């Protein structure tokens, strides 16, 4: 229905609502509900009366709002209508126009007041007899109502069951919508062409280039023919060169450009402008995390319960060509007297050289039986199938390992082969304590070995097959002797005619015992037992008197170490730097500096038993101690103490040998007094050299040499000063006495 306003919203123009006070009502005779009622609300008022009332009461008059309208009213009588229901907001209203008055009086009477009041204000005075309800014009309000109301949006689904199942529980289950074809409807996306834009304009830059054309051709090679050209550069003969050098032109040229050259060269001498300091700061090949651990890690350990029980290892050697094979010489742990006492028992126990391979840590691959304990042995550098060993009883042996089968099996199946050794007659009266690495001759084939023994002899041997012409008798004799030497194992008889025919090339007598390492170049050093270091030159000199060759006397002699010197080793990086280890100290020497060692260590707590240079870092070397520790010395880091110490075993370390397997793996073989061979892995910090390490080391050595020279000079100076001062005093005394 229509909204009902409580208040009147507008009144037509031709009426004016008025409120009359009871005084005014009495005056004009239009008292509410007495003179005028709901049925008869009309009252005619005279215009003059209203005007007079207005004059009399002025502003207080109730008619004052309509003063002007009343004055303008054309007729004499105005209609006042009693608005009992307050339709227009007041109790009365005054009709302002005559037409309206007529309309009020006449039609209203006919129609009835309520009907007139219920009409729209615009249609209030419509000349209709009956008003029908107007069609309802929707202003959108029913939509709001509909939205708020709750209705069924779809027909309700009715699920029915059979009667017997009424009240029974119902079980629902899931069904996959993908199972049936029409299980679901989907709206697949597609590319709408309406939305793809085609770029019609684009800004680009254009540059012209010269015309390029590529073409190729193929030659036809009808007759393949081998052809070659040999050429050599053109050269001038000596006279032509002389001519050129004499020419004026060259002279002028040289004079003019020499200064330019000198400027350029001096520029380079002053500073290298292309040197990138930033790049040079970093050390190459930095591994993550691996750098942190500086310790030698145990890689593998070999000990044989059967063969190396109760024994000690006297020497270790890595096989020069086969990777992962290492040979150790096991000897009895007895002193000389015990040996003599127990010699019979020893004869039953064969002395062995064991070959270990990394593939089998339990069983040695090869055993070489020796007639006696081998104290020292070396692989021949040119032919690794040859080993030379020096035995306890003074024999020098070369077992031939050209049992190729046996060696190749080292990598596959382990075999324990025992090879007979060709032994040779005694030339040393005492045990051969050290073998020298066989020297090479010009062809790169090793033909010489050096042995030294405590019998004060150092011998050089030539192991070439002697081309001595033999008489028939000798040959026959040899043949006869050959037969019993036929080997049962099929060893090729490489050395058979060397049996018993070796003669030492040089025989040198020296005053004291020789017990230690030999390192051979033409001049060499060796160290006798009681800590002496003797330096000599092996060049043969011809004695003019007898015509025989003999070797020179030792040129220098030093007593530095307080115990037996057990190691003399050249540095692999510097040809003239030698490390010697003995007693409780070690020393580093430089060949040519005869004053003394350039570096000498302080006494350590325990005896140093062996030492070896690192193969990859010029500043590092390893010292083995008698308590099983290995001291790693890094001369660029600390020179007063080892940079690190690591305990490897519980007993004395007898031999250390490093070996480079690959650039990522460096191994250190350490043997101890109990017969165990430990293989340790050298960590990155100890095996990778820092940049300029060699240069720094050589500078360090030079500094030390300078220091020695300086001290020598000072010593001489002081001695001279002392002599001078003494002479001076003596003179003074004499002068005094003479007076």
């Amino acid at each position, binding site marked *: 229905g229509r909204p009902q306003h409580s208040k009147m919203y507008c009144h037509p123009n031709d009426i004016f609502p008025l409120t009359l006070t009871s005084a005014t009502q009495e005056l004009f005779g239009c008292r509410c509900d007495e003179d005028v009622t709901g049925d008869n609300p009309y009252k005619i008022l005279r215009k003059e009366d209203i005007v007079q009332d207005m004059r009399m009461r002025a502003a207080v008059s109730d008619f004052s709002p309509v003063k002007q309208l009343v004055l303008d009213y054309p007729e004499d009588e105005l209609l006042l209508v009693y608005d009992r229901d307050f339709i227009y907001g007041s109790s009365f209203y005054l009709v302002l126009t005559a037409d309206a008055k007529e309309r009020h009086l006449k039609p209203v009477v006919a129609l009835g007041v309520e009907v007139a009041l219920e009409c729209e204000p615009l249609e209030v005075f419509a000349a209709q007899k009956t008003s029908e309800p107007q069609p309802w014009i929707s202003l959108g309000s029913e939509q709001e109502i509909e939205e708020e109301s709750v209705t069924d949006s779809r027909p309700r689904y009715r699920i029915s069951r059979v009667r017997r199942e009424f009240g029974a529980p119902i079980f629902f289950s899931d069904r996959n919508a993908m199972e049936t074809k029409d299980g679901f409807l989907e709206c697949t996306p597609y590319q709408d062409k309406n939305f793809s834009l085609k770029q019609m304009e684009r800004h680009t830059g254009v540059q012209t280039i010269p015309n390029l054309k590529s073409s190729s051709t193929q030659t036809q090679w009808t007759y393949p023919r081998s052809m070659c050209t040999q050429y050599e550069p*053109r050269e001038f003969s000596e006279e032509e060169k002389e001519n*050129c050098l004499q020419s004026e*032109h060259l002279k002028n040229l*040289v004079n003019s*450009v020499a200064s330019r050259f*000198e400027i350029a*060269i001096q520029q380079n*001498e002053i500073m290298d402008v292309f040197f990138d300091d930033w790049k040079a700061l970093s050390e190459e090949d930095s591994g993550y995390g691996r750098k942190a651990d500086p310790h030698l890690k145990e890689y593998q350990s070999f000990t044989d319960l059967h063969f190396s029980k109760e024994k000690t290892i006297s020497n270790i050697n890595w096989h020069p060509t086969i990777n992962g094979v290492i040979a150790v010489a096991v000897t009895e742990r007895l002193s000389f007297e015990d040996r003599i006492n127990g010699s019979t028992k020893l004869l039953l126990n064969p002395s062995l050289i064991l070959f270990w391979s990394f593939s089998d840590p339990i069983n040695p691959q090869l055993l070489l039986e020796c007639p006696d304990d081998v104290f020292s042995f070396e692989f021949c550098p040119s032919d690794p199938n040859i080993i030379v060993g020096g035995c306890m009883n003074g024999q020098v042996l070369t077992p031939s390992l050209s049992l190729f089968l046996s060696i190749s099996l080292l990598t596959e199946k382990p075999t324990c082969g025992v090879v007979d050794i060709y032994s040779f007659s005694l030339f040393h009266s005492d045990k051969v304590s050290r073998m020298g690495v066989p020297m090479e001759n010009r062809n790169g084939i090793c033909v010489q070995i050096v042995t030294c023994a405590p019998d004060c002899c150092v011998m050089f041997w030539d192991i070439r097959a002697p081309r001595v012409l033999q008489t028939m008798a000798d040959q026959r004799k040899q043949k006869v002797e050959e037969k019993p030497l036929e080997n049962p194992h099929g060893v090729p008889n490489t050395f058979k005619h060397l049996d018993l025919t070796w003669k030492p090339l040089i025989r040198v007598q020296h005053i004291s015992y020789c017990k230690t390492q030999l390192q051979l170049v033409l001049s060499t050093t060796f160290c006798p037992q009681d800590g002496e270091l003797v330096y000599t030159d092996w060049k043969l000199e011809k004695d003019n008197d007898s015509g025989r060759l003999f070797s020179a006397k030792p040129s220098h002699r030093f007593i530095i170490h307080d115990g037996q010197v057990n190691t003399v080793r050249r540095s692999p990086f510097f040809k003239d730097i030698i490390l010697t280890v003995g007693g409780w100290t070690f020393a580093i020497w430089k060949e040519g500096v005869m004053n003394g060692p350039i570096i000498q260590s302080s006494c350590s707590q325990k005896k140093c038993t062996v030492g070896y240079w690192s193969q990859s870092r010029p500043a590092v070397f390893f010292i083995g101690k008698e308590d099983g520790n290995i001291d790693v010395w890094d001369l660029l880091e600390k020179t007063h103490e080892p940079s690190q110490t690591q305990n490897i075993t519980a007993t004395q370390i007898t031999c250390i040998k490093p070996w480079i397997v690959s650039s990522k793996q460096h191994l250190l073989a350490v043997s101890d007094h109990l017969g165990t061979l430990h293989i340790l892995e050298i960590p990155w910090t100890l095996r990778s050299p820092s940049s300029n390490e060699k240069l720094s080391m050589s500078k360090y050595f030079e500094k030390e040499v300078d220091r020695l020279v300086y001290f020598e000079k000072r010593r001489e100076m002081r001695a001279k000063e002392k002599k001078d001062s003494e002479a001076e005093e003596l003179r003074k005394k004499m002068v005094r006495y003479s007076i």
Partner: protein
Amino acid sequence: MLPKAEVEETLKRIQTHKGVIGTIVVNAEGIPIRTTLDNSTTVQYAGLLHQLTMKARSTVRDIDPQNDLTFLRIRSKKHEIMVAPDKEYLLIVIQNPSE
């Protein structure tokens, strides 16, 4: 003094500078005249540097015909090679700057 001795002296002076590895005098066709290095190295340097100097000179003159090459310095990782060209001869000096 004989011209040759002067030449010799100057070249020796250059040679004795620190870091100088070798000095070569080459004629216009690339044939070595005087050298302090061994023969094979000399021949190699002479041939290669002769060609390079020709190319460098032609480059300079192409850009500006009034110009000419006076000095050529080649800096490599290990060495510096200095070449002084001339109509008839070529002087080459090799130096190791970082020593």
